[in-house]
């Protein structure tokens, strides 16, 4: 009796703490549904309710959203193609200097994005690929590849040796073993890596603002939002509506794929 009572008391505290933590997000949603004239009243709920802000946002931001989806999916593809075979090599095959490679992967996650952006900018400028979607995909993939290799190889190291030996006895080549045994077993890791690659590419501001600042509609939603800040400084309603729209994929992925999000967090817990 007493323990149940105490447990609910803790739930109450937990609810208060969570509410405090999520208040900024509530505030964003609240403002996004408030009429322009009433925003400065700072009501605790949208008393002057409107969806007009969303109409403004959807009419202007849709192309950016499409570009972001494209960039996100492209980043997922590049990340998976590069990191899965590398992880197989590191965890199940013999690679000379694998300690050095592991060290480089750790450092790669620590390099400030602004340093990378400076290097990319000169190279892209020389090659004439600034303001291109694929240039941004390749740059964004550098955020996720080290994480992908480390998460994949942690999982692949746990694949029982017997499973791979059985394939070998059946006469499978290394490629065949990788493609038909290792990859299907690693499906969950692939979902986790892909999920984070997408989220990070979707959230990226730094590479987008340096490598793709003049790409027009072929820029991601973070830049669409950034334009909004500059051009409509006083229009907080549409701005917050745009912020809500930009958060939707994150929210969906968090709800639909919560299991994979948790897996990724416990495995690596890395983010800029």
């Amino acid at each position, binding site marked *: 009796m007493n323990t149940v009572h105490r*447990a*609910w008391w*803790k*739930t109450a*505290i*937990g*609810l208060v703490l969570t509410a405090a*933590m*999520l208040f*900024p*997000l509530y*505030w964003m949603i609240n403002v996004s549904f408030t009429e322009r004239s009433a925003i*400065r009243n*700072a009501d605790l709920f949208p008393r002057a309710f409107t969806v007009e802000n969303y109409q403004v946002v959807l009419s202007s931001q849709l192309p950016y959203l499409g570009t972001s989806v494209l960039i996100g999916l492209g980043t997922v593809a590049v990340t998976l193609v*590069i990191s899965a*075979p*590398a992880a197989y*090599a*590191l965890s199940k*095959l*013999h*690679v*000379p200097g694998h300690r050095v490679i592991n060290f*480089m992967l*750790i*450092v790669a996650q*620590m390099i*400030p*994005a*602004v*340093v*990378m*952006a*400076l*290097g990319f900018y*000169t*190279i892209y*400028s020389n090659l004439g690929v600034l303001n291109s979607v694929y240039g941004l995909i390749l740059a964004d993939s*550098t955020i996720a*590849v080290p994480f992908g290799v480390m998460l994949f190889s942690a999982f692949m190291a746990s694949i029982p040796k017997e499973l791979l030996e059985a394939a070998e006895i059946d006469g499978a080549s*290394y490629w065949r073993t*990788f493609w038909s045994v290792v990859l299907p077993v690693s499906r969950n890791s692939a979902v986790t890596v892909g999920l984070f690659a997408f989220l990070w590419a979707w*959230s990226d501001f*730094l590479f987008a*603002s340096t490598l793709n600042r003049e790409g027009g509609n072929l820029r991601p939603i*973070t830049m669409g939002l950034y334009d909004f800040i500059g051009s409509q400084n006083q229009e*907080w309603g549409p*701005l*917050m509506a745009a*912020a809500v729209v*930009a958060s939707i994929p*994150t929210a969906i992925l968090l709800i639909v794929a*919560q299991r994979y*999000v*948790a897996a990724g*967090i416990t495995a690596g*817990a*890395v*983010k*800029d």
Partner: protein
Amino acid sequence: MSTPSSAARPLPKVAARRRGQPPGDAPRRRRIRPTTWAGLAFIAPMAIYFCVFYVYPLYENVSMSLHRFTRATFVTGAAPFVGTTIYTEVTNSPLFVPTVIQTAIFVIVSLVFQYTIGLGLAVFFRRHFPLSEVLRALFLVPWLLPIIVSATTWQWMMDAENGIINRFLGVFGMDPIWWLNNDHSLWAVVIANIWLGIPFNLVILYSGLQNISADLYEAAAIDGASAWRQFWSITFPLLKPVTAITLLLGFVYTLKVVDIIWIMSMGTGSSQTLATWAYAMAFGKGSSSVIRYSQAAVVGTVLLVVALIMGFVYLFVQRRQEER
């Protein structure tokens, strides 16, 4: 029993690698094993990728810090080698010392609060209670959202005249604070950054707590130790290795923060850190004003060296943990 310093000396390293080979392996003259060939083939795409997308940009960055790059360089290609001249220019700049101090404040204050709040929450959520898992999952939301979303929201909440924070403070009779003006912008971005970093600390410290045996607490409880005593005598000491990793990663991630600061204050006034300074010099002013690529690259190289050092420290801490 290889010590971390042995990584710098070539001899023990070779010995270690030899020792790692299976017993009975023929001398080195033997042909390379098939698994090695396969390993090389499977790692090749990443090796090439690494050279093209990490080594090359970083090389460009360092090279830019040693050459005088101007906007014209991108047209003419002429950038004379000037050695460490630009390094001297940057460190002698009147902005250098204040920026380093502000960076230190930004990083240290953020870390202290992120860690203590994260640890408090981790300890709190460790006791299972109804809804604890759902609430803990909700704590992650701010971490996964695009930073531009959070930053914009904080910017509006900190609006001097109509922001909710000043309204709230007004209830207690406090005067409105001009959060984003030059003097206060450092504290504004620190507050937002602490908020952003709490989920990361909560997650790592929570998983660290999971590895502490419940028996220890039961034994302590039988001996009559208070919750506070249990925390200081069991939780905190046993959490030390996790704490080290958390603070180390937190340090690196906070040091390189650009977006939250740039979106909230554009790095103006006291909120300029080394990372935003580099960003501002290279990309900030748009095409019209003076662009200082080389100076930005100098600051970038400094940050890069710190990242490298921290990589070694990370390896050192990790290895010491494994030896235990």
